[in-house]
């Protein structure tokens, strides 16, 4: 595929917004999916605020028990199925073809279908709120037998089940399309060992998606059949089997919700350090190991069931230390010796690495069954995954946003407003999720609409609820930043940050077929940096 694609002029036009809904341009699909994911983030965030209001004190009675159970189910489901995961895929859909020098994606119609099936799944899932018995309320994981039709009756839970199924199908289609693109549309010279860091994180993520999301589709289909009267998950074996199948998806998904944002933070750090990412080959190998391991740890969610061999999963879960350590080594190696510019994207990226570390270390803690026997189903787990997914991935997400916003829109995001956004978000995040470690250790169970009077619990929960309010303010500041930056545009040009990778070698935003000028020679995973370094060397040699 020639990477210089010169389109012939088209003779007629389809109305702009209608066409953009069915566009086969990967940038449009990525934007559509990303904007919808952001909308769902706000919806899920609203649910979180309602939950935190309920929990601010021991007996607020802000919502009924039933509503609270719907809230935590839908909050988790919205954040996982409709925000963090699809946003990761959307970022990949937008950026990976650019980074690998492709003019377009492979299988564009599959990508269009994938977006629409996913979006429909989100709508179907949320439509449960409008039903008589309410939205899904058996948890985002819907264990049997609680999630069957006798224990959780009503069409809202049915709609939840089908909504998850559709969302999973949609995301699998998007991932398959990205895999095909990476396999078949890399530019001449772009060997797999010259793919940029973000592209590699997306690559292993889509491998995990196609390798595990279809299992969720089957699990949900069988759950729906069970709710319609079939006897699928029968007896105690059915209970364990459901969990084995669900978590075979349920663990890899959290790595899909982590790796691409690690890629965002890595790209932001490298560019802002004026230094290519350190230890690329070790990084690539460790990403392959990391993702293979992530497919092998799932029953650590089942340590207390007595139905699995805890030691195998303690082994695989603790082994995660090795690839994770390599990522941190590479991050430090990139920073040291660099020429660091502390832009907002860099600050968010550093925030990602530091805060994610808290989540990751707590993960190694609970990888030990004896420690997990205390922590499981308590607020320690809630703290752990919010540190990895929110204090980690969402900070990585914002690093990516501040880094690539100029490329996508042609305008800068305001740095000054960005700093306010960052500081508020950091304060709010740690206020909300830090005390949860203490509460969990002291015995506060998760998924409870009310907690008993215990010394200190009311105070800690109040601090957490105030923190959640601060997070909301921070998000509002971000939205304000976007609005201001688009209204009074400060043009960014093609390559405002002196980027390393091919997306910076085209206009902002890129044209329909991505590259109108010939690509620079692809000599490594940082081709633009290679060019600059060679030019500096030649200039030095000439003088």
């Amino acid at each position, binding site marked *: 595929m020639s990477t210089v694609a010169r389109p012939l002029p088209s003779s007629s036009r389809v109305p702009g917004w209608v066409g953009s809904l069915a566009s086969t341009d990967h940038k449009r699909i990525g934007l559509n999916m990303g904007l919808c994911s952001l909308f769902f983030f706000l919806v899920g965030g609203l649910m979180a605020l309602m939950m935190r209001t309920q929990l601010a004190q021991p007996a607020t009675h802000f919502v009924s028990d039933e509503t609270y159970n719907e809230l935590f189910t839908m909050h988790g489901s919205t954040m996982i199925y409709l925000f963090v995961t699809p946003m990761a895929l959307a970022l990949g859909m937008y950026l990976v073809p650019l980074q690998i020098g492709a003019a377009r994606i492979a299988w564009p119609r599959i990508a269009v279908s994938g977006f629409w099936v996913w979006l429909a799944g989100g709508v179907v899932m949320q439509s449960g709120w409008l039903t008589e018995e309410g939205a899904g309320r058996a948890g985002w994981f819907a264990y049997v037998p609680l999630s069957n039709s006798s224990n959780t009756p009503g069409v809202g839970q049915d709609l939840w089940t089908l909504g998850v199924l559709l969302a999973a199908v949609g995301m699998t289609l998007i991932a398959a399309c990205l895999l095909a693109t990476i396999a078949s549309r890399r530019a001449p010279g772009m060997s797999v060992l010259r793919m940029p860091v973000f592209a590699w994180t997306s690559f292993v993520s889509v491998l995990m998606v196609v390798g595990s999301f279809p299992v969720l589709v089957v699990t949900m289909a069988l759950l729906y059949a069970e709710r319609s009267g079939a006897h699928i998950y029968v007896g*105690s074996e059915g209970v*364990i089997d459901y969990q084995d199948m669900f978590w075979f998806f349920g663990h890899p998904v959290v790595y899909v919700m982590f790796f691409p944002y690690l890629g965002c933070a890595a790209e932001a750090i490298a560019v802002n350090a004026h230094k290519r990412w350190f230890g690329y080959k070790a990084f690539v190998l460790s990403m392959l190991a990391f993702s293979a391991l992530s497919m092998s740890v799932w029953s650590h969610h089942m340590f207390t069931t*007595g139905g699995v061999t805890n*030691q195998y999963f303690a082994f695989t879960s603790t082994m995660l230390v090795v690839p994770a350590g390599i990522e941190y080594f590479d991050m430090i190696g990139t920073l040291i010796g660099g*020429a*660091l510019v502390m832009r907002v994207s860099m600050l968010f990226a550093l925030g990602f690495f530091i805060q994610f570390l808290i989540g990751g*270390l707590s993960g190694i803690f609970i990888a030990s069954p*004896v*420690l997990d026997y*205390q922590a499981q189903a308590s607020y320690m787990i809630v703290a752990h995954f919010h540190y990895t997914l929110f204090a980690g991935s969402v900070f990585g997400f914002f690093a990516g946003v501040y880094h690539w916003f100029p490329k996508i829109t042609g305008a800068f995001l305001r740095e000054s407003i960005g700093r306010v956004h960052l500081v508020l978000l950091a304060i709010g995040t740690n206020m909300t999720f830090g005390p949860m470690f203490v509460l969990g250790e002291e015995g506060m169970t998760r998924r409870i609409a009310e907690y008993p009077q215990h010394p200190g619990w009311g105070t800690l929960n109040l601090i957490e609820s105030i923190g959640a309010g601060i997070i909301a303010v921070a998000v509002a500041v971000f939205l304000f930043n976007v609005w201001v930056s688009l209204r009074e545009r400060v043009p960014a040009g093609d390559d405002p940050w002196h980027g390393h990778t091919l997306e910076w070698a085209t206009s902002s935003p890129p044209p329909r077929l991505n590259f109108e000028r010939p690509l620079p020679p692809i000599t490594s995973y940082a081709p633009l940096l290679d060019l600059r370094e060679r030019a500096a060397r030649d200039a030095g040699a000439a003088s």
Partner: protein
Amino acid sequence: MTAGALVFSHADETLALVVTRTEYKRLFDIYVPIAIGVFVVIVALVLFAVLRFRRRPAERAARRHENNPLEATYALVLLGVVVFLLYLTFRAEHRVDAVAAEERPQLEVNVTGAKWEWHFNYPGYGINRYSGTVGHEALVVPVDEAIRFRLVSLDVIHELWVPELRYKHDLIPGYPQAMTLTFPQRGTFSGECAEFCGLYHSRMIFTVDAVSPSEFRAWTRSEAAMAHASEPAPAGADRSLADRSRS
């Protein structure tokens, strides 16, 4: 049965009872300092890099971008840490799961969980205690004795958690299981259902009164005496476990 059992059986057993809280604390006291140490080192390195290397001209950025021998060595060191942590974990888990299961219990308690109440039955004494949405009768236990809890669920998955003991286990419908716990000190402790089980999951709580063995025997005798007076089921337990277990 498992690799851990093969490696550790007869290696670390003592005559003392397995105390889950002690096993947890031993691991906690190693895992947490290591984690804090790692965190401090990484943050210090990041801070050092940020302070030392910012506001430099871009041309001064170093060109070296890999050190594979160093990374390989580092990976091996990490692997060593993993092996160390796994050794400690497997040893503790063997004690908590396998060794404790082989202790001869001095007391047996049948635990039945159903939405949204706990039924504790002492088969040796014919005593029944109920807690949850039906009311709150404490589970009374003797300290320093191995207590075997037989766990049964009548409907959905529940989970018995006593945070004081740092231990919980699932009650899975159709899959009766047993766990063995020892309370190392007297007191009143909270207990809860830790697996989301539906509408009133948050009300499925209980308390544990851990008393001295002599107080426990005295309590069983007084309970037996009161049972002769045909005590009715606790108030509000219309369709509750209390009735179901009596039929």
